C-alpha cells in the first residue's frame, strides 16, 4: 500500500526512534510512505485550545496537500497528529458550512477525501503479513499495550476500535509472537502535555500506569504516542518512590516491537535512544543488543 505520510514535529524531534522504526518496518511490510510535501503543524495543544477555526484549518491544509499528491489515505504515526487530523476531517465532513469556510481559508482545492490512519490501525491490518515475516518472533515477551487517551477517542472520530475496550495493539503484539498482558490502565491519562508545566501530576499518573503494568507482569509497555512515550520514559526515574528499587520498565513504540520481530537490528529501530534501557526487550529478538543502550538518565 502507498500512503501519504505525515511525520509531524515529533518524528523529527523527541520521537526520532518512532519515525526511524516506522520507516524500518514499512519497507518489509510493503508500505510506501510518501511524505506530504510542505506539511505543517497539526495544531495539537496550542491551536485547538485557542481557536476552533485554526484547529480545523491547520490539519485541513495538510490533508489538502495529501489530496493534491493523489492520496486517499494518510498515515499520522503520532497519536496527537492523528487525533487532530482525523478530528478536523470529521468536523469538516459533518458541517457543510465549516467546510465552505475552510475551503475559502485554504484557497486551494480540498474535497476532504483523505482518510486518516494511525500506525496501530495499519499494523493491525497487516497482522498476517507481520506473522508471516516475523523471523525473530518475540516468544515469551510480555507486553502491556498502552493506548492512552488520543488513539481511540473520541469514538465518532477514530472508529477503528472499541473506545472502551480496544484490541488492535494486542493483535499486533500477538502477531509479533509476544504476549499481551491483561491490565487495566491501558486507556488512562499519562499527563499528556503537562510534562513540563505540571510535573507532579505527570509523575502521579505515570506511576499508576507503571505500577499496574508491573503488577500484570509486563516486560515492557508498548505505546503509539510520542507524548505517552516521553512521559513514561523520560519521567520514569522521577516516578520511582524514594528508596524503591524496582527494575526499570522499558517503554517502546509499537513499531519497534514489530521491527524486532521482523529481525531488524535494534539500532536501526532507534532502541538506543530511550532513557530507560530497552535491553529486556531487545534481548528477546534474534539480534542481541548491539548498540549500548543509554541507561536511565
Amino acid at each position, binding site marked *: 500500500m502507498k500512503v501519504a505520510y505525515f511525520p509531524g514535529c515529533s518524528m523529527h524531534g523527541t520521537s526520532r526512534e518512532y519515525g526511524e522504526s516506522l520507516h524500518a518496518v514499512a519497507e518489509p511490510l510493503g508500505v510506501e510512505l510518501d511524505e506530504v510535501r510542505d506539511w505543517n503543524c497539526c495544531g495539537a495543544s496550542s491551536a485547538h485550545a485557542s481557536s476552533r477555526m485554526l484547529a480545523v484549518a491547520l490539519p485541513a491544509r495538510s490533508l489538502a496537500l495529501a489530496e493534491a499528491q493523489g492520496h486517499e489515505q494518510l498515515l499520522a504515526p503520532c497519536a496527537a497528529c492523528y487525533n487532530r487530523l482525523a478530528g478536523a476531517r470529521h468536523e469538516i465532513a459533518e458541517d457543510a458550512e465549516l467546510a465552505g469556510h475552510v475551503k475559502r481559508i485554504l484557497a486551494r482545492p480540498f474535497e476532504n477525501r483523505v482518510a486518516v490512519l494511525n500506525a496501530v490501525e495499519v499494523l493491525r491490518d497487516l497482522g498476517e503479513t507481520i506473522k508471516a515475516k516475523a523471523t525473530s518472533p518475540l516468544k515469551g515477551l510480555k507486553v502491556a499495550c498502552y493506548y492512552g487517551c488520543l488513539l481511540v477517542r473520541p*469514538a*465518532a472520530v477514530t472508529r477503528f476500535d*472499541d*473506545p*472502551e*475496550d480496544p*484490541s488492535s495493539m494486542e493483535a499486533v503484539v500477538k502477531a509479533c509472537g509476544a504476549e499481551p498482558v*491483561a491490565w*487495566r490502565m491501558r486507556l488512562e491519562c499519562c499527563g499528556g502535555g503537562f510534562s513540563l508545566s505540571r510535573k507532579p501530576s505527570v509523575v502521579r499518573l505515570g506511576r499508576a500506569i507503571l505500577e499496574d503494568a508491573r503488577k500484570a507482569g509486563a516486560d515492557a509497555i508498548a505505546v503509539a504516542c510520542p507524548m505517552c512515550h516521553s512521559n513514561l520514559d523520560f519521567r520514569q526515574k522521577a516516578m520511582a518512590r524514594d528508596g524503591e528499587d524496582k527494575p526499570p520498565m522499558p517503554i517502546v513504540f509499537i513499531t519497534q516491537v514489530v521491527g524486532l520481530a521482523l529481525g531488524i537490528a535494534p539500532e536501526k529501530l532507534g532502541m538506543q535512544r530511550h532513557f530507560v534501557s530497552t535491553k529486556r526487550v531487545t534481548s528477546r529478538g534474534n539480534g542481541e543488543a548491539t548498540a549500548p543502550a543509554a541507561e536511565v538518565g
Partner: protein
Amino acid sequence: MARIGVFVCHCGENIGRTVDCHAVAEALGQVPGVAHAVDYKYMCSDPGQQLIKAAIAEKQLTGVVVAACSPHMHEKTFRRAASSAGLNPFTCEMANVREHCSWIHEDRASATAKAIDLSRMMVEKVKRNVPLSTIRIPVTRRALVIGGGIAGIQAALDIADGGAEVVLVEKAPSIGGHMSQLSETFPTLDCSQCILTPRMVEVYQHPRIRLMSWSEVESVEGYIGNFKVTIRKKARGVDEDKCNGCGACTRACPNKRIPSEFDCGLGKRPAIYVPFPQAVPNLPVVDRARCTLLIARSKGKKDACMKCVEACQRGAIDFEQKDRFVTEEVGAIVVATGYQLYEIGRDQGGRKDLHGYGEYGYGTIPDVIDGMQFERLASASGPTAGRILRPSDGREPRTIVFLQCVGSRDPAKGIEYCSKICCMYVAKHAMLYRHKENGGRAVVFYMDIRAAGKGYDEFTRRAIEEEGAEYVRGRVSRMYRDGDVIKVVGFDTLGGEPFGVDADMVVLATAMRPQPGIESLAQKLSVSYDRHGFINEAHPKLRPVETNTAGVFVAGACQAPRDIPDSVSMASATASKVLGLFSNEMLEREPTVARVDAAICAGCFHCERVCPYGAVTHMEVKDRQGNVLKVVADVNPGVCQGCGTCVATCPSKSVELQGFTDEQVWAQIQAFLG
C-alpha cells in the same frame, strides 16, 4: 350514455358561505352526461340522502357525484345510500369542496370556480367508473402462533378458548420461554413458574391446541384467511409417541457436564435432556453436537455409547430420526417470538455496531453475570436452589453491584432505545438479594429510574427507601478483578465525584433485542421490521397488534421491549383480532385492487419486483392443447392492498388499478385543464 347525478351540499354555511352552491349545480347541469344536478343544505342528513335515492330511481342515474366534504368523512355514507337505491356503490364518488375549497379560500368567485372544476373532474371520473363488487375470500378458521413464551401461550389459549384451532410452534424443546427462567416477577414478587406452569399444562391439554415444540417455521405462502405454512420438526432423537417422560435416559447419559441453556451456563445438563423439570412437553431431546454416540458416528467410528438406549424401557430413543416437514393451513398468524439479551462484549450475530462493553469483563470475570443469570441464581429451581452464590467460588457475595442500561440507551453502542423492564427487575434483584443475604450491600448504578406502570414506582421506591438498596446515579467506566473482589470504577453524577465500589458480584442489566433470525422470519411473513429487528406494528397507536400484512399479528417482546403484563395484554389483543377475523365465513375486501390484462402482459414481472405484498404471481396462458403459450403476471386480489405501484411501473400498461384507472385519471386532468 352516462346519466350522472350531481348533488351539491351547502354543509349548512360551511360550504355555502364561500361557494355559490347553486351556481355550481347549475354549471354542472350543463356538463354532457349529467342528467341531474341540485344543491341542498345538508346532503348527509336523512332528507339529503333521500333526495339522492329518489333521484337515482326517478332519473335512472348511472352514477353519482356528491360535491361536499372529504371522502374520508362521508364516502361510505353516500355509497351506502347509492347502493340502497340500486346503484353499484363504486359508481358513487365525492368531490371535496369543503376541506379542499370552501374552508381554505375566501374569495367567492375563485372558490366557486374551483368547486365547479372539482365537481366536473369527478363527473368525468364517474363516467368511467365500472361497477365493482366487493371481493370475498374464504377464511380457514385455524391460527398459527409462532413462539411459545408467555405471549404465545396466552394468544394460543385465548384463541383456542374462543373456539378456533391453534397450531403453536416453539423452536426450543419446551414452551415457557424466558418467563419460565425467572425467579419472582415484579412488582408483586409472585413466583414466575407458579403462575406460568399451569398455563403451560393447559396448552398441552387443550383439545384445540396442537403443540409443536422443537420446531421452526420453514416457509409461509398465501394470504389472510388462507396461509399455507411449512413447519420443520427438528429431529428430537426421541420418538414422541413412545416416550413417557420417565427421565431414565437423562439419568443414564454419562456426559453430564454440558452447560445448561436454561440455567444460562450456570448449571449443567446431560447430552440427552429435558431443559427443566416442568417442561412441556415433558420429552427429552438429544443434543446432536454433544452426544458421544452421534459424534463417533459422524467421524465414521463405531457406536461408542448406548447408555440411554439401554436405559429406555420403551425403545423410544431413535438416533435415525430426521427433520420432518409438515404443512399446516391456517387463516391467521400470531408472531410472538420474544427477545434475547444483548451479548456483552461479544459478537452480536454479525451486528458489528453492537459490539461493546468489553471493559466490564463479562465472560472473563466469572462473577460478572447478566440479569438472566441472576434470575437463575435466585430461582428456587435454579442451579444453586435459590441461594445467591458466586459462580467463581460458591461464596455468598457481601456486596453486589447492579448496572442498569448495559446496551440500552446508548447510540454509540447501536441501541438507542430503552429496554423498559430493567429498572424494574434490577429493583427486584436488589430486593431479592437483600432478603436472602442478611446485611448484604446492593449498589445500583442507574441513568434514570423509569418505573411507569401500576405499582411500579412504588416498587422501585420500596427498594430504595425500605429495602436499603443504594442507588447511585451514574455510569461505570471499568471493572477489573483485584484479588478476590471486583473493583467497580464509576462516577456519581449527583455527587459530582468518582464513585468506586469493591464488589463480590456484578450484575449487568443488558438490553433486550429481538430473537436471532427474526429478520428471516419477518421476510417469510412479508412483515416489516425496524432497524433493530423489532416487528413493525401497522399503526403505533391505533393498530398496535396488527402488522402491515393482513392476517399477521404481533404480540410481546418481538415488537418492542415488553414486560409480562404488556406481553399478555398484546397476546389477548391478537386473539381478539384473530377471533374477529374468524367470525366471518368469508372476508370482504374493497375491490380497489390491481388487475392484469393477460392479453397484453409481456411477462416482464417488473410488477412483481415492486409489489410490497408479494401479491403478483405467475400465471401460465395455455392453448387448447394445454401447451403453455406464455407466462404472465397475475394479481391475487386477496393479497393486493391496492397501492397501484405495479400500475405505474408496468411498461406495457397491462395492469390497471380498479377505481383508479389511467383512463379515469386522464379524464380528471382533462376535465380541469380542457
